Protein backbone atom coordinates (compact mmCIF):
# COMPACT_ATOMS: atom_id res chain seq x y z
CA UNK A 1 0.00 0.00 0.00
CA UNK A 2 1.45 3.35 -1.06
CA UNK A 3 0.47 6.71 0.42
CA UNK A 4 1.48 10.11 -0.91
CA UNK A 5 1.20 13.41 0.94
CA UNK A 6 1.77 16.78 -0.70
CA UNK A 7 2.80 19.60 1.64
CA UNK A 8 2.45 23.02 0.05
CA UNK A 9 2.65 26.64 1.12
CA UNK A 10 4.99 29.57 0.77
CA UNK A 11 8.68 29.73 1.61
CA UNK A 12 9.19 30.13 5.37
CA UNK A 13 6.12 28.17 6.50
CA UNK A 14 8.19 25.12 7.37
CA UNK A 15 6.83 23.01 4.52
CA UNK A 16 10.03 21.03 3.96
CA UNK A 17 10.49 20.49 7.70
CA UNK A 18 7.01 19.13 8.42
CA UNK A 19 7.34 16.85 5.38
CA UNK A 20 10.69 15.65 6.70
CA UNK A 21 9.25 14.86 10.12
CA UNK A 22 6.48 12.80 8.51
CA UNK A 23 9.03 10.99 6.31
CA UNK A 24 11.09 10.22 9.40
CA UNK A 25 8.04 8.83 11.20
CA UNK A 26 7.26 6.60 8.21
CA UNK A 27 10.85 5.33 8.22
CA UNK A 28 10.57 4.61 11.97
CA UNK A 29 7.53 2.47 11.20
CA UNK A 30 9.54 0.38 8.78
CA UNK A 31 8.13 1.87 5.59
CA UNK A 32 10.11 2.77 2.50
CA UNK A 33 9.94 6.50 2.05
CA UNK A 34 10.91 9.22 -0.41
CA UNK A 35 10.98 12.94 0.45
CA UNK A 36 10.86 14.87 -2.81
CA UNK A 37 11.17 18.65 -2.53
CA UNK A 38 10.45 21.24 -5.17
CA UNK A 39 13.79 22.82 -5.94
CA UNK A 40 12.91 24.93 -8.94
CA UNK A 41 13.85 28.60 -9.18
CA UNK A 42 11.39 30.06 -6.66
CA UNK A 43 11.40 33.62 -5.39
CA UNK A 44 11.22 34.56 -1.71
CA UNK A 45 7.65 34.19 -0.55
CA UNK A 46 6.90 32.03 -3.59
CA UNK A 47 5.43 28.56 -3.43
CA UNK A 48 7.30 25.77 -1.65
CA UNK A 49 6.12 22.22 -1.86
CA UNK A 50 7.29 18.80 -0.93
CA UNK A 51 5.95 15.30 -1.60
CA UNK A 52 6.31 12.46 0.87
CA UNK A 53 5.81 8.98 -0.59
CA UNK A 54 5.59 6.05 1.82
CA UNK A 55 5.02 2.41 1.08
CA UNK A 56 5.38 -1.05 2.57
CA UNK A 57 7.01 -2.07 -0.73
CA UNK A 58 10.07 -0.50 -2.40
CA UNK A 59 8.96 2.79 -3.96
CA UNK A 60 9.02 2.90 -7.75
CA UNK A 61 8.42 6.34 -9.17
CA UNK A 62 9.09 9.05 -6.58
CA UNK A 63 7.45 11.53 -8.93
CA UNK A 64 3.72 11.74 -8.17
CA UNK A 65 1.20 13.90 -10.03
CA UNK A 66 -1.85 12.76 -8.03
CA UNK A 67 -1.19 12.47 -4.30
CA UNK A 68 -3.60 10.79 -1.92
CA UNK A 69 -3.48 13.67 0.61
CA UNK A 70 -2.75 17.40 0.66
CA UNK A 71 -1.71 19.80 3.41
CA UNK A 72 -2.36 23.27 1.95
CA UNK A 73 -0.87 26.12 3.97
CA UNK A 74 -1.84 29.00 1.65
CA UNK A 75 -4.36 29.83 -1.06
CA UNK A 76 -2.19 29.40 -4.18
CA UNK A 77 -1.24 25.92 -2.91
CA UNK A 78 -4.84 24.89 -2.42
CA UNK A 79 -5.80 26.18 -5.86
CA UNK A 80 -2.87 24.47 -7.52
CA UNK A 81 -2.98 21.06 -5.83
CA UNK A 82 -6.56 20.45 -4.57
CA UNK A 83 -7.73 19.32 -8.04
CA UNK A 84 -4.87 16.74 -8.17
CA UNK A 85 -5.79 14.92 -4.93
CA UNK A 86 -7.15 11.39 -5.34
CA UNK A 87 -10.77 10.81 -4.29
CA UNK A 88 -11.04 9.68 -0.67
CA UNK A 89 -7.93 11.53 0.44
CA UNK A 90 -7.58 14.14 3.16
CA UNK A 91 -7.16 17.83 2.33
CA UNK A 92 -6.06 19.99 5.25
CA UNK A 93 -6.86 23.64 4.61
CA UNK A 94 -5.10 26.33 6.64
CA UNK A 95 -8.24 28.39 7.25
CA UNK A 96 -6.18 31.22 8.80
CA UNK A 97 -4.96 32.17 5.34
CA UNK A 98 -7.45 30.45 3.04
CA UNK A 99 -10.98 31.93 3.02
CA UNK A 100 -12.72 28.86 1.54
CA UNK A 101 -12.54 25.10 1.22
CA UNK A 102 -11.29 22.98 -1.66
CA UNK A 103 -14.69 22.64 -3.29
CA UNK A 104 -14.11 18.91 -3.59
CA UNK A 105 -16.99 16.72 -2.47
CA UNK A 106 -15.08 13.45 -2.79
CA UNK A 107 -12.35 14.06 -0.21
CA UNK A 108 -12.20 14.36 3.58
CA UNK A 109 -11.65 18.04 4.23
CA UNK A 110 -10.22 19.51 7.39
CA UNK A 111 -10.34 23.28 7.94
CA UNK A 112 -7.91 24.29 10.67
CA UNK A 113 -6.84 27.86 11.60
CA UNK A 114 -3.26 26.73 12.21
CA UNK A 115 -1.74 30.22 12.26
CA UNK A 116 -4.11 31.50 14.96
CA UNK A 117 -3.53 28.40 17.08
CA UNK A 118 0.23 28.76 16.73
CA UNK A 119 0.16 32.46 17.60
CA UNK A 120 -1.83 31.69 20.76
CA UNK A 121 0.83 29.16 21.73
CA UNK A 122 3.51 31.81 21.40
CA UNK A 123 4.93 31.60 17.87
CA UNK A 124 3.43 31.44 14.41
CA UNK A 125 6.47 29.36 13.47
CA UNK A 126 4.84 26.29 14.98
CA UNK A 127 1.88 26.50 12.57
CA UNK A 128 3.41 23.77 10.42
CA UNK A 129 3.48 21.38 13.39
CA UNK A 130 -0.16 22.16 14.26
CA UNK A 131 -1.03 21.31 10.65
CA UNK A 132 1.11 18.18 10.57
CA UNK A 133 -0.36 16.86 13.79
CA UNK A 134 -3.94 17.63 12.75
CA UNK A 135 -3.32 15.94 9.40
CA UNK A 136 -1.77 12.81 10.92
CA UNK A 137 -4.53 12.55 13.53
CA UNK A 138 -7.14 12.62 10.80
CA UNK A 139 -5.45 10.57 8.07
CA UNK A 140 -3.59 8.18 10.42
CA UNK A 141 -0.83 7.75 7.82
CA UNK A 142 1.57 7.11 10.74
CA UNK A 143 1.02 6.47 14.45
CA UNK A 144 0.56 9.62 16.47
CA UNK A 145 3.08 8.46 19.11
CA UNK A 146 5.73 7.87 16.46
CA UNK A 147 5.08 11.35 15.11
CA UNK A 148 5.59 12.87 18.58
CA UNK A 149 8.88 10.99 18.98
CA UNK A 150 10.07 12.29 15.62
CA UNK A 151 9.10 15.88 16.52
CA UNK A 152 11.16 15.55 19.71
CA UNK A 153 14.09 14.17 17.77
CA UNK A 154 13.88 16.88 15.13
CA UNK A 155 14.18 19.62 17.74
CA UNK A 156 16.64 17.75 19.96
CA UNK A 157 19.34 20.35 19.25
CA UNK A 158 16.97 23.25 19.97
CA UNK A 159 15.62 22.34 23.39
CA UNK A 160 13.67 25.59 23.84
CA UNK A 161 11.55 24.69 20.81
CA UNK A 162 10.57 21.19 21.93
CA UNK A 163 7.84 22.20 24.39
CA UNK A 164 6.37 24.76 21.97
CA UNK A 165 6.16 22.19 19.19
CA UNK A 166 4.79 19.47 21.45
CA UNK A 167 2.07 21.90 22.53
CA UNK A 168 1.44 22.69 18.87
CA UNK A 169 1.10 18.97 18.11
CA UNK A 170 -1.32 18.49 21.01
CA UNK A 171 -3.51 21.40 19.85
CA UNK A 172 -3.59 19.97 16.33
CA UNK A 173 -4.63 16.57 17.62
CA UNK A 174 -7.34 17.92 19.95
CA UNK A 175 -8.79 20.06 17.22
CA UNK A 176 -9.00 17.19 14.79
CA UNK A 177 -10.73 15.14 17.46
CA UNK A 178 -13.33 17.87 17.96
CA UNK A 179 -13.80 18.27 14.19
CA UNK A 180 -14.53 14.60 13.75
CA UNK A 181 -17.13 14.44 16.51
Amino acid sequence: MQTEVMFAGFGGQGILLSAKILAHAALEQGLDVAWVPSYGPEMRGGTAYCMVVMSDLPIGSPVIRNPLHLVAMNLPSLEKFAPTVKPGGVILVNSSLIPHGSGRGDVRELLVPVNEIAIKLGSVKSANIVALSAFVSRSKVVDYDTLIRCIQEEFAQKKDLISLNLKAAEEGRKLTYLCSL
Partner: protein
Amino acid sequence: MGKVLMKGNEAIGEAAIRAGCLNYFAYPITPQSEVAEYLSRRLPEVGGVFLQGESEVAVSYMIFGAAACGERVFTTSSSPGISLMSEGISYIAAAQCPAVFVNIMRGGPGLGGILPSQADYFQATKGGGHGDYRLLVMAPAGVQEAVEMVMRAFPLAEEYRNPVIILGDGLIGQMMEPVEFPDHLSSKPSNKDEWATNGMATRKSGRPNIVRTLILDPNTLNEHNLHLKEKYERMKRDEVRYEPYNLEADYRGLIVSYGTMSRVCRSAIDALKEQGVEVGMVRPQTLFPFPEKAIEEAASKESCEVVVSIEMSMGQMVEDVERSVRGRRPVEWYGTCGGDVPTPEEIMEAMKSFMSSESPHLVHSSTG
Protein backbone atom coordinates in the same frame (compact mmCIF):
# COMPACT_ATOMS: atom_id res chain seq x y z
CA MET B 1 24.18 1.79 12.24
CA GLY B 2 20.55 1.60 11.14
CA LYS B 3 18.80 3.39 8.34
CA VAL B 4 18.86 7.18 8.32
CA LEU B 5 16.89 9.58 6.19
CA MET B 6 19.29 11.51 4.01
CA LYS B 7 19.35 13.75 0.98
CA GLY B 8 21.12 12.18 -2.01
CA ASN B 9 23.70 14.97 -2.23
CA GLU B 10 24.62 14.67 1.46
CA ALA B 11 24.70 10.89 1.33
CA ILE B 12 27.11 11.06 -1.63
CA GLY B 13 29.45 13.25 0.46
CA GLU B 14 29.27 10.94 3.46
CA ALA B 15 29.84 7.86 1.28
CA ALA B 16 33.05 9.36 -0.10
CA ILE B 17 34.39 9.94 3.42
CA ARG B 18 33.52 6.37 4.35
CA ALA B 19 35.37 5.21 1.24
CA GLY B 20 38.47 6.82 2.70
CA CYS B 21 38.46 9.89 0.48
CA LEU B 22 39.62 12.95 2.39
CA ASN B 23 40.09 15.32 -0.53
CA TYR B 24 37.19 17.18 -2.11
CA PHE B 25 37.73 20.09 -4.46
CA ALA B 26 34.68 21.61 -6.12
CA TYR B 27 32.82 24.60 -7.39
CA PRO B 28 29.14 24.99 -6.43
CA ILE B 29 26.33 24.50 -8.94
CA THR B 30 22.65 23.58 -8.60
CA PRO B 31 21.32 20.89 -8.18
CA GLN B 32 24.28 19.41 -6.29
CA SER B 33 25.60 22.25 -4.12
CA GLU B 34 24.57 20.39 -0.93
CA VAL B 35 27.50 17.99 -1.47
CA ALA B 36 29.89 20.92 -1.02
CA GLU B 37 27.83 22.36 1.83
CA TYR B 38 27.90 19.03 3.63
CA LEU B 39 31.58 18.33 3.07
CA SER B 40 32.67 21.85 4.01
CA ARG B 41 31.43 20.93 7.47
CA ARG B 42 32.28 17.21 7.59
CA LEU B 43 35.76 17.06 6.03
CA PRO B 44 37.48 19.28 8.62
CA GLU B 45 35.95 17.02 11.32
CA VAL B 46 37.75 14.00 9.92
CA GLY B 47 41.01 15.75 9.02
CA GLY B 48 40.21 16.07 5.33
CA VAL B 49 40.58 18.91 2.85
CA PHE B 50 37.61 20.86 1.51
CA LEU B 51 38.61 23.35 -1.12
CA GLN B 52 36.39 25.51 -3.27
CA GLY B 53 38.21 26.15 -6.52
CA GLU B 54 37.98 29.34 -8.53
CA SER B 55 36.36 27.47 -11.43
CA GLU B 56 35.56 23.94 -12.56
CA VAL B 57 38.55 24.01 -14.92
CA ALA B 58 40.83 24.71 -11.96
CA VAL B 59 39.09 22.04 -9.90
CA SER B 60 39.76 19.38 -12.54
CA TYR B 61 43.49 20.10 -12.35
CA MET B 62 43.46 20.12 -8.55
CA ILE B 63 41.94 16.65 -8.84
CA PHE B 64 44.65 15.68 -11.34
CA GLY B 65 47.37 16.91 -8.98
CA ALA B 66 46.05 15.09 -5.92
CA ALA B 67 45.36 11.92 -7.90
CA ALA B 68 48.89 11.95 -9.40
CA CYS B 69 50.25 12.06 -5.84
CA GLY B 70 48.28 8.92 -5.01
CA GLU B 71 45.60 10.61 -2.89
CA ARG B 72 41.98 9.48 -2.94
CA VAL B 73 40.17 12.49 -4.40
CA PHE B 74 36.77 13.35 -5.79
CA THR B 75 34.57 16.14 -6.99
CA THR B 76 30.93 16.70 -7.78
CA SER B 77 29.32 19.04 -10.27
CA SER B 78 26.44 19.39 -12.67
CA SER B 79 26.31 19.38 -16.45
CA PRO B 80 27.89 22.76 -17.42
CA GLY B 81 30.50 22.26 -14.69
CA ILE B 82 31.39 18.81 -16.03
CA SER B 83 31.82 20.36 -19.49
CA LEU B 84 34.44 22.69 -18.00
CA MET B 85 36.13 19.79 -16.21
CA SER B 86 36.24 17.63 -19.31
CA GLU B 87 39.65 18.90 -20.41
CA GLY B 88 41.14 17.86 -17.08
CA ILE B 89 39.32 14.53 -17.19
CA SER B 90 40.95 13.74 -20.54
CA TYR B 91 44.39 14.49 -19.03
CA ILE B 92 43.65 12.37 -15.95
CA ALA B 93 42.56 9.44 -18.13
CA ALA B 94 45.67 9.86 -20.32
CA ALA B 95 47.93 9.96 -17.27
CA GLN B 96 46.13 6.91 -15.84
CA CYS B 97 45.32 8.47 -12.51
CA PRO B 98 42.37 7.34 -10.40
CA ALA B 99 39.70 9.89 -9.50
CA VAL B 100 35.95 9.95 -8.94
CA PHE B 101 33.59 12.46 -10.51
CA VAL B 102 29.88 12.83 -9.79
CA ASN B 103 27.57 14.54 -12.26
CA ILE B 104 24.13 15.40 -10.86
CA MET B 105 22.73 16.22 -14.28
CA ARG B 106 20.53 19.18 -15.15
CA GLY B 107 18.84 19.98 -18.44
CA GLY B 108 20.94 21.37 -21.26
CA PRO B 109 22.42 22.34 -23.63
CA GLY B 110 23.99 25.57 -22.44
CA LEU B 111 22.88 26.63 -18.98
CA GLY B 112 19.59 24.83 -19.59
CA GLY B 113 17.50 24.26 -16.47
CA ILE B 114 18.07 22.76 -13.04
CA LEU B 115 15.39 20.06 -13.07
CA PRO B 116 16.10 16.32 -13.56
CA SER B 117 17.62 15.37 -16.89
CA GLN B 118 19.73 12.62 -18.41
CA ALA B 119 21.07 14.68 -21.27
CA ASP B 120 24.76 14.06 -20.46
CA TYR B 121 24.73 10.40 -21.48
CA PHE B 122 26.88 11.05 -24.54
CA GLN B 123 29.24 13.28 -22.59
CA ALA B 124 29.82 10.62 -19.93
CA THR B 125 29.94 7.52 -22.10
CA LYS B 126 31.41 8.74 -25.38
CA GLY B 127 33.93 11.35 -24.37
CA GLY B 128 33.28 14.86 -23.19
CA GLY B 129 36.96 15.61 -23.40
CA HIS B 130 39.23 14.92 -26.34
CA GLY B 131 41.09 11.80 -27.30
CA ASP B 132 40.65 8.04 -27.12
CA TYR B 133 39.61 7.57 -23.52
CA ARG B 134 36.67 6.11 -21.67
CA LEU B 135 35.22 6.64 -18.23
CA LEU B 136 33.67 3.92 -16.16
CA VAL B 137 30.12 5.27 -15.81
CA MET B 138 27.74 4.24 -13.02
CA ALA B 139 24.11 5.31 -12.81
CA PRO B 140 22.26 5.03 -9.46
CA ALA B 141 18.45 4.85 -9.30
CA GLY B 142 18.14 5.97 -5.67
CA VAL B 143 20.01 7.35 -2.69
CA GLN B 144 21.05 3.96 -1.29
CA GLU B 145 22.45 2.88 -4.63
CA ALA B 146 24.25 6.22 -5.02
CA VAL B 147 26.01 5.54 -1.72
CA GLU B 148 27.02 2.04 -2.76
CA MET B 149 28.25 3.23 -6.14
CA VAL B 150 30.34 6.06 -4.65
CA MET B 151 31.98 3.60 -2.28
CA ARG B 152 32.68 1.18 -5.14
CA ALA B 153 33.93 3.90 -7.44
CA PHE B 154 37.15 4.55 -5.51
CA PRO B 155 38.58 1.01 -5.60
CA LEU B 156 37.49 0.67 -9.24
CA ALA B 157 39.23 3.92 -10.17
CA GLU B 158 42.39 2.63 -8.50
CA GLU B 159 42.21 -0.84 -9.98
CA TYR B 160 41.89 0.52 -13.51
CA ARG B 161 43.88 3.70 -12.88
CA ASN B 162 41.11 5.56 -14.65
CA PRO B 163 38.50 8.17 -13.70
CA VAL B 164 35.08 6.85 -12.72
CA ILE B 165 31.99 9.03 -13.11
CA ILE B 166 28.67 8.64 -11.34
CA LEU B 167 25.78 9.94 -13.38
CA GLY B 168 22.77 10.97 -11.31
CA ASP B 169 20.04 13.50 -11.95
CA GLY B 170 18.63 16.37 -9.92
CA LEU B 171 16.09 14.13 -8.24
CA ILE B 172 18.72 11.68 -6.94
CA GLY B 173 20.58 14.66 -5.48
CA GLN B 174 17.61 16.47 -3.95
CA MET B 175 15.49 13.57 -2.74
CA MET B 176 15.71 12.13 0.79
CA GLU B 177 15.50 8.37 1.14
CA PRO B 178 16.45 5.88 3.84
CA VAL B 179 20.15 4.98 3.63
CA GLU B 180 22.28 2.42 5.34
CA PHE B 181 26.02 3.00 5.06
CA PRO B 182 28.25 -0.03 4.68
CA ASP B 183 30.67 -0.04 7.62
CA HIS B 184 33.99 -0.41 5.90
CA LEU B 185 35.24 -0.21 2.40
CA SER B 186 36.93 -3.43 1.50
CA SER B 187 39.51 -2.86 -1.14
CA LYS B 188 42.72 -4.43 -2.31
CA PRO B 189 46.02 -2.94 -1.17
CA SER B 190 46.79 0.16 -3.19
CA ASN B 191 48.95 -0.21 -6.29
CA LYS B 192 49.99 3.41 -6.12
CA ASP B 193 53.69 2.82 -5.50
CA GLU B 194 53.88 1.71 -9.13
CA TRP B 195 52.69 5.04 -10.49
CA ALA B 196 52.10 7.81 -7.93
CA THR B 197 54.50 10.73 -7.51
CA ASN B 198 54.42 10.26 -3.75
CA GLY B 199 58.12 10.69 -3.01
CA MET B 200 61.11 8.35 -3.13
CA ALA B 201 61.40 7.91 0.64
CA THR B 202 59.04 4.95 0.87
CA ARG B 203 59.41 3.64 -2.69
CA LYS B 204 60.65 0.07 -2.90
CA SER B 205 61.47 0.10 -6.62
CA GLY B 206 63.95 2.98 -6.42
CA ARG B 207 62.58 4.16 -9.77
CA PRO B 208 61.05 7.63 -10.06
CA ASN B 209 57.40 7.76 -11.19
CA ILE B 210 56.62 10.38 -13.80
CA VAL B 211 53.10 11.57 -14.61
CA ARG B 212 52.77 12.96 -18.12
CA THR B 213 50.41 13.03 -21.09
CA LEU B 214 52.61 14.46 -23.86
CA ILE B 215 53.82 11.55 -25.98
CA LEU B 216 55.22 12.84 -29.25
CA ASP B 217 56.66 9.62 -30.63
CA PRO B 218 53.91 8.02 -32.77
CA ASN B 219 54.82 4.46 -31.91
CA THR B 220 54.91 5.15 -28.18
CA LEU B 221 51.58 7.00 -28.34
CA ASN B 222 50.05 4.14 -30.29
CA GLU B 223 51.31 1.68 -27.66
CA HIS B 224 49.94 3.91 -24.92
CA ASN B 225 46.50 4.04 -26.54
CA LEU B 226 46.50 0.29 -27.10
CA HIS B 227 47.22 -0.13 -23.41
CA LEU B 228 44.29 2.15 -22.54
CA LYS B 229 42.10 0.17 -24.92
CA GLU B 230 43.11 -3.03 -23.19
CA LYS B 231 41.85 -1.56 -19.90
CA TYR B 232 38.54 -0.51 -21.45
CA GLU B 233 38.12 -3.99 -22.91
CA ARG B 234 38.77 -5.42 -19.45
CA MET B 235 36.04 -3.15 -18.04
CA LYS B 236 33.65 -4.43 -20.73
CA ARG B 237 34.45 -7.98 -19.69
CA ASP B 238 34.37 -7.58 -15.90
CA GLU B 239 32.42 -4.52 -14.83
CA VAL B 240 29.04 -4.66 -16.58
CA ARG B 241 26.23 -4.28 -14.05
CA TYR B 242 22.50 -4.20 -14.70
CA GLU B 243 19.22 -5.09 -13.01
CA PRO B 244 16.63 -7.22 -14.82
CA TYR B 245 12.96 -6.51 -14.09
CA ASN B 246 10.03 -8.77 -14.99
CA LEU B 247 12.16 -10.62 -17.56
CA GLU B 248 10.73 -13.98 -16.47
CA ALA B 249 7.35 -12.95 -17.94
CA ASP B 250 6.41 -13.32 -21.61
CA TYR B 251 6.77 -9.62 -22.26
CA ARG B 252 5.74 -8.01 -25.52
CA GLY B 253 7.78 -4.90 -24.91
CA LEU B 254 11.24 -4.47 -23.43
CA ILE B 255 12.24 -1.20 -21.76
CA VAL B 256 15.85 -0.10 -21.33
CA SER B 257 16.01 2.71 -18.79
CA TYR B 258 18.36 3.94 -16.05
CA GLY B 259 18.41 6.20 -13.01
CA THR B 260 15.26 8.02 -11.87
CA MET B 261 13.59 7.27 -15.20
CA SER B 262 13.88 3.51 -14.58
CA ARG B 263 11.92 3.86 -11.33
CA VAL B 264 9.02 5.47 -13.15
CA CYS B 265 9.24 2.63 -15.68
CA ARG B 266 9.13 0.09 -12.85
CA SER B 267 5.86 1.61 -11.58
CA ALA B 268 4.49 1.56 -15.13
CA ILE B 269 5.48 -2.10 -15.58
CA ASP B 270 3.72 -3.05 -12.30
CA ALA B 271 0.55 -1.18 -13.32
CA LEU B 272 0.59 -2.71 -16.81
CA LYS B 273 0.91 -6.17 -15.27
CA GLU B 274 -2.30 -5.54 -13.32
CA GLN B 275 -3.97 -4.84 -16.67
CA GLY B 276 -2.60 -8.10 -18.06
CA VAL B 277 0.05 -6.45 -20.22
CA GLU B 278 3.59 -7.74 -19.72
CA VAL B 279 6.60 -5.49 -20.20
CA GLY B 280 10.17 -6.30 -19.13
CA MET B 281 13.08 -4.03 -18.35
CA VAL B 282 16.84 -4.08 -18.34
CA ARG B 283 18.15 -1.29 -16.11
CA PRO B 284 21.80 -0.54 -16.83
CA GLN B 285 23.68 0.25 -13.60
CA THR B 286 26.84 0.80 -15.62
CA LEU B 287 26.43 2.88 -18.79
CA PHE B 288 30.01 2.21 -19.78
CA PRO B 289 30.53 -0.69 -19.96
CA PHE B 290 27.00 -1.08 -21.37
CA PRO B 291 25.00 -4.30 -20.77
CA GLU B 292 24.95 -5.14 -24.47
CA LYS B 293 24.63 -8.91 -24.12
CA ALA B 294 21.86 -8.73 -21.52
CA ILE B 295 19.86 -6.40 -23.75
CA GLU B 296 20.44 -8.51 -26.85
CA GLU B 297 19.34 -11.64 -25.01
CA ALA B 298 16.27 -10.00 -23.49
CA ALA B 299 15.30 -8.51 -26.88
CA SER B 300 15.64 -11.91 -28.53
CA LYS B 301 12.94 -13.52 -26.40
CA GLU B 302 10.24 -14.82 -28.70
CA SER B 303 7.41 -12.85 -27.09
CA CYS B 304 9.29 -9.54 -27.43
CA GLU B 305 7.99 -7.31 -30.23
CA VAL B 306 9.75 -4.04 -29.57
CA VAL B 307 12.56 -2.53 -27.49
CA VAL B 308 12.11 1.01 -26.15
CA SER B 309 14.86 3.19 -24.72
CA ILE B 310 13.18 5.46 -22.17
CA GLU B 311 15.39 8.33 -21.07
CA MET B 312 15.24 11.98 -20.06
CA SER B 313 17.11 13.12 -23.15
CA MET B 314 16.33 13.52 -26.82
CA GLY B 315 17.48 9.99 -27.52
CA GLN B 316 21.10 9.29 -26.58
CA MET B 317 21.19 5.88 -24.90
CA VAL B 318 18.91 4.63 -27.68
CA GLU B 319 22.00 4.48 -29.92
CA ASP B 320 23.65 2.00 -27.56
CA VAL B 321 20.39 0.07 -27.30
CA GLU B 322 20.21 -0.19 -31.10
CA ARG B 323 23.82 -1.34 -31.18
CA SER B 324 23.07 -3.98 -28.53
CA VAL B 325 19.87 -5.28 -30.15
CA ARG B 326 21.77 -5.68 -33.45
CA GLY B 327 18.66 -5.44 -35.58
CA ARG B 328 16.88 -8.36 -33.96
CA ARG B 329 13.91 -6.20 -32.96
CA PRO B 330 12.69 -2.69 -33.78
CA VAL B 331 14.10 -0.12 -31.37
CA GLU B 332 12.18 2.99 -30.29
CA TRP B 333 12.86 6.01 -28.13
CA TYR B 334 10.56 7.69 -25.64
CA GLY B 335 11.40 10.54 -23.32
CA THR B 336 11.30 14.14 -22.27
CA CYS B 337 14.18 16.56 -21.95
CA GLY B 338 12.91 19.73 -20.28
CA GLY B 339 12.99 18.65 -16.66
CA ASP B 340 9.49 17.20 -16.30
CA VAL B 341 9.83 13.54 -15.40
CA PRO B 342 7.28 11.45 -17.36
CA THR B 343 4.61 9.79 -15.20
CA PRO B 344 4.00 6.04 -15.02
CA GLU B 345 0.70 6.66 -16.88
CA GLU B 346 2.54 8.33 -19.76
CA ILE B 347 5.00 5.43 -19.97
CA MET B 348 2.12 2.94 -19.95
CA GLU B 349 0.40 4.74 -22.79
CA ALA B 350 3.62 4.99 -24.80
CA MET B 351 4.40 1.29 -24.35
CA LYS B 352 0.87 0.32 -25.39
CA SER B 353 1.12 2.38 -28.55
CA PHE B 354 4.52 0.92 -29.45
CA MET B 355 3.27 -2.61 -28.90
CA SER B 356 0.00 -2.21 -30.79
CA SER B 357 1.55 -0.69 -33.88
CA GLU B 358 1.47 -3.14 -36.77
CA SER B 359 3.96 -1.46 -39.04
CA PRO B 360 7.68 -1.87 -38.42
CA HIS B 361 8.99 0.89 -36.16
CA LEU B 362 11.61 2.45 -38.34
CA VAL B 363 11.29 6.03 -37.18
CA HIS B 364 11.91 7.22 -33.63
CA SER B 365 8.79 8.59 -32.01
CA SER B 366 8.93 11.67 -29.91
CA THR B 367 6.73 13.25 -27.31
CA GLY B 368 6.23 16.82 -26.27
